[in-house]
């Protein structure tokens, strides 16, 4: 696992608008050792509204201090509360399905 970067999942306790999510990501990207940020959500049926439900932050370090900085940003941007979890939540290597689909070139 050592070559795999750790990740943090931010789970807001309310569904977040896309504007707020973008502002949150912009703030998260200013933190040192934040490698990549992503979010996931869903559209209303008429595609007029997008709500964000999950935010993932990939880190370049295992240091605890980064988590503190992330929490500071979240406290500011998500006043209604959030859950935060460390682990690995997004894809970091090709899966069997990717090989079957042919999206990975065999060496």
């Amino acid at each position, binding site marked *: 696992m050592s070559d795999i970067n750790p990740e943090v999942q931010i789970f807001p306790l309310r*569904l977040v608008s896309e504007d707020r999510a973008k502002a949150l990501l912009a703030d998260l990207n200013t933190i040192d050792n934040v490698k990549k940020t992503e979010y996931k959500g869903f559209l209303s049926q*008429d595609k007029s509204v997008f709500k964000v439900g999950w935010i993932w932050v990939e880190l370049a370090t295992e240091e605890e201090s980064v988590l503190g900085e992330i929490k500071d940003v979240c406290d500011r941007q998500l006043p209604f509360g959030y859950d935060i979890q460390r682990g690995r939540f997004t894809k970091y290597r090709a899966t069997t399905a990717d090989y079957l689909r042919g999206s990975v070139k065999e060496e």
Partner: protein
Amino acid sequence: MVYKAQFVPGESIVSKNRKKYMDPEYKFKKLRSLSDEDLVLVLGHRAPGEDFKSVHPPLDEMGEPDCIIRELVEPTEGAKAGDRIRYVQFTDSVYFAPITPYQRAWAYLHRYRGIDTGTLSGRQIIEARERDVEKYAKELIESETFDPARTGIRGRTVHGHAVRLDENGLMFDAMQRYIFDADSGEVKYVKNMGGEPIDRPVSVGKPLPDEELEKMTTMFRADGVSITKDPEVLEVVNAVHWGRTFGGYKSVNREGQ
């Protein structure tokens, strides 16, 4: 001996609210008012001002056969006039909606006549004659069992009851039937129950604050009033569970009883 109906067990605030809503003697508190035209727009079964369509002539003109049951049971207004069967359906959020689908069924069956009601995990439908539906819907929307943010009037694409609320505290609606008007702080319906746009927005009032909703709810929740805090409810739930598990459809046959 005259029994006084207890309706549901328990002494907690949640049980008390359940009893209150189920007791037909109790009159729902009126929290908002909705004009007849607004109601017709939201339901979307007929255009405002349009006559009720009928499926049979009025009962008075039909010459009904001699029947003791027909003499005993007074028909509802809608049945008398021969209205079509129409419906109203509510979705209740798990986040402290004032009432839940199952309790809606219990309350409806104690209060309303000439209805067919169906329960699903997040929604509750009432089918009845059109003018009866309008009467019941008006009473329910104006009453304390409705919260503009946590209750939805949804005919189809009803899901959202277990989805997180949005930033304004509104339950998610995939069809975006209602919007939060930040200027007035009110929730406004811009589409009818079936998801079709309506001529003008219909306001259903301001959402209630969380503290208020927690006092009004009929929901046992770990972050509100937990079911474990009400021993009488727990006892009844346990009795039903074990009776059903060991007795099947004949819980009286359960061993040791």
